[in-house]
């Protein structure tokens, strides 16, 4: 049976346990199907019309038996649910690691655009190192897409207007399929590519090989550097520069709780910053009711992600440069 593959490769940390649950469910399916099949076959043969067997007093019901075959499968189901839910939570939760590689993914009809934090861009191919947690922050420019790597057993929808994230850690070098799993129009079947898992050394080499800009001899900038330039070009620094009174200071605010004028508290995450750039009046920070922040018409998803990278990088700036952050004091 050389021509018929049965299982995809296990190339991520989660793949093995997903497969274990799959094996368990397959075993249960085979067991119950065979049990029903055997039961039907046995009765059909034994009680076929005309056979001389005892047919007296056929039971109309049997409460104990019926409860048994309701409750036992119920507990089996709940056990599978529990295991599967536990693994699901583990797969969704950030992998606690300081050196996670954070790559951004932009889906559009019909291609994947990716950018590494160090600035390297790629289309439809993702190069990553083995054995290092990878976090994808994903958004779509148009319709729904879904980022799917079968060998890693992971998939996440890529939605317009909102970031979704996905975590994984590759365990085996090689080249694997990358598919768009959510139907996205005409060339859905061509929105495919590959994930290339490299050794850490190869990945460093790959980054070096790709650190030069297309035309210029200049080194490419990291996402945060690109964001910093944009920050100035769009005039954000007019109000948000350290020491400025116009808008809330940004250094160190990433990940903190923000008190809004309407009394809500929100976490300053990627989606919060994105919303605040695109719709400044949607979530106004407490104390800034009378301030007006202009929008930046025509800003692209890629640019928003660069601004976010820049704002996040401000966290590591020397504290002396930033004024006292009232929100951090609260949180």
């Amino acid at each position, binding site marked *: 049976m050389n*021509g*018929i593959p*049965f299982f*995809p490769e296990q190339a991520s940390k*989660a793949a093995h346990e*997903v497969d274990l649950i*799959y094996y368990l*469910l397959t075993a*249960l*399916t085979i067991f*119950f*199907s065979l049990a*029903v099949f055997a*039961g*039907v076959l046995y*009765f*059909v043969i034994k*009680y*076929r*019309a*005309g056979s001389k067997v*005892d*047919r007296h*007093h*056929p*039971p*109309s*019901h*049997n409460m104990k038996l*019926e409860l048994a075959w*309701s409750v036992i*499968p*119920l507990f089996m*189901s709940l056990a*599978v*649910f529990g295991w*599967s*839910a536990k*693994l*699901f*939570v583990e797969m969704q939760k950030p992998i606690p690691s300081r050196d996670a590689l954070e790559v951004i993914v932009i889906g559009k009809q019909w291609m994947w655009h990716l950018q590494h934090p160090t600035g390297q861009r790629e289309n439809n191919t993702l190069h990553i190192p083995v054995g290092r947690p990878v976090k994808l922050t994903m958004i779509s420019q148009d*319709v*729904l897409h*879904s980022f*799917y790597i079968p060998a890693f*057993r*992971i*998939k*996440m*929808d890529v*939605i*317009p207007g909102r970031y*979704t994230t996905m975590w994984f850690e590759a365990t085996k070098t090689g080249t694997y399929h990358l*598919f768009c*799993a959510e*139907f996205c*129009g*005409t060339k*859905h*079947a061509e929105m495919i590519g590959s994930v290339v898992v490299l050794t850490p050394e190869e990945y460093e080499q790959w980054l070096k090989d790709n650190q030069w800009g297309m035309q210029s001899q200049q080194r490419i900038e990291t996402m945060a550097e690109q964001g910093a330039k944009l920050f100035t070009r769009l005039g954000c620094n007019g109000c948000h520069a350290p020491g400025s009174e116009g808008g809330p200071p940004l250094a160190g605010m990433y990940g903190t709780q923000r008190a809004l004028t309407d009394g809500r508290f929100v976490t300053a995450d990627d989606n919060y910053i994105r919303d605040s750039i695109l719709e400044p009046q949607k979530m106004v920070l407490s104390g800034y009711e009378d301030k007006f922040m202009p929008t930046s018409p025509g800003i692209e998803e890629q640019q928003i992600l660069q601004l976010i990278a820049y704002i996040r990088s401000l966290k590591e700036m020397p504290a002396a440069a930033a004024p006292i952050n009232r929100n951090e004091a609260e949180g």
Partner: protein
Amino acid sequence: MSAATTSQHKGSVNYLNCDYSLKSWLTTLDHKRIGLLYLIAILIFFLIGGSMALMIRYELLTPEGDFLMSDTYNKTFTMHGVALIFFFLIPSIPAVLGNFLLPLMLGAKDVAFPRLNLLSWYVFMAGATLGTIALVAGGVDTGWTFYTPLSSTFAHGAVVLAVSAAFVAGFSSIMTGVNFIVTIHMMRAPGLTWSRLPLFVWAHYATSLIQVLGTPVIAITLFLVGVERAIGIGIFDPKLGGDPVLFQHLFWFYSHPAVYIMILPGMGVISEVIACFARRRIFGYDFVAYSSLAIAVLGFFVWGHHMFVSGQSMYAGMVFSVITFLVAIPSAVKIFNWTATLYKGSIHLTAPMLFALSFMGLFTIGGLTGLFLASMAVDIHLHDTYFVVAHFHYVMVGGQIIAFLAGLHFWWPKMTGRMYPEGLGKLSALVTFIGFNLTFMPQFILGYMGMPRRYHSYPEEWQVLHVLSSAGASVLAAGFLLTIGYLIWSLWYGEKASANPWGAKGLEWQVPSPPPTENFEGKPIVKEEAYHYSPELHEEEKEYEHV
């Protein structure tokens, strides 16, 4: 209920021969004729949807796109889904067999609202016409799920026409549901208490509840898609200030229960057929009856299992996952109870019984593979792959269509007054079972390998599995065509059927085949429970020629 052979009127006036004019058919208020009108309508859509399935499988013979590509392929699978779900599966058993049989099983002259019943057929035909226009006017390339914002903003097909078609057809479904609920409550013959109802009636009661409660939601949802597309009011497209995931919540709030609209009536058919040909009262009648209601109720709280990777909250996902595991239990109970019904029975392997046993096998696999998709961690991998396609077809084709065929064969003598050829019937049951498994078993493996759905091209290493599946599809198609062929043949050349060729219990078998327009002479009185069979007595009697 006494033996039925007495009331046989050969050559007498019945609902078919009372008036042959076209006008008499198009203005009929007779539930039996309306059932047949539905049968003709859905047969057309079965053939349209089925031939599209064959075109899809033909394209997938090779890894490259060569027969249907991009837009054409996308339109083909979209119309395959729309035609078969909205215009075949949803009306199949309720509108055809349900319409024909409910009043007969209840001992009534007709349904509660005969005019509403005819109107429902006309509304259905209006929806069907819109659907056909959408197909001719360039087709739709959104998938039958109409996910936004692709459908509302980006797709370039006749989306508004297609959603209007489903929107209009939905009203026919609601009318049928209301009609059945009132009929079951108000029109039961004296003595026919709830605990004496055939399980077919229980299943249709549960189905009707879902139709009435769920269908308005899909109507509103599709209307909103049309509004966003036609006049740009932002509801689902983030560019217009909408939320694309909202659509999925609304869509699946109806469309998951709709799966039970499609499968519950099939379960009702299986209960009737197994009881008759095992000559046994259904084991654990109460459990089987209430499990239909349990499925109908729980079915409304599982929609989020379609959305584990949609960006929905992880905790919401857990709730939907656990309820999905729960809804599997009543289905399992039915399978176990049907198996136990065979115990100490007197089993006749007629064609309807073979279809029923085939249903049990295929539905068991279809149901259990649903648990893979209910398991959140496994669903991350399987969502939107061929595993879902295979699971869905095991339930919808292996379950519902096979049950429809079981019912169609079982009540064919009653509906037409003719017997179908028994040998060919058995052959058809066998061929469809083999063809079906060959088509969809390889798709489970493809899905686990990672083959995404709605792709017209795929990596080379999966070709063998695709070829197997396409080969199975042609066997399955041969089985279906054979069935349609001999059923039509039997309308003219089939042996004349007696009132009760199977020796079955149930009020519908006490009237002649085909029944007279008014169904019963006088009001029948029910004095015994459903399925008052007696296997040991039956072994001695041998009075029915066809079992």
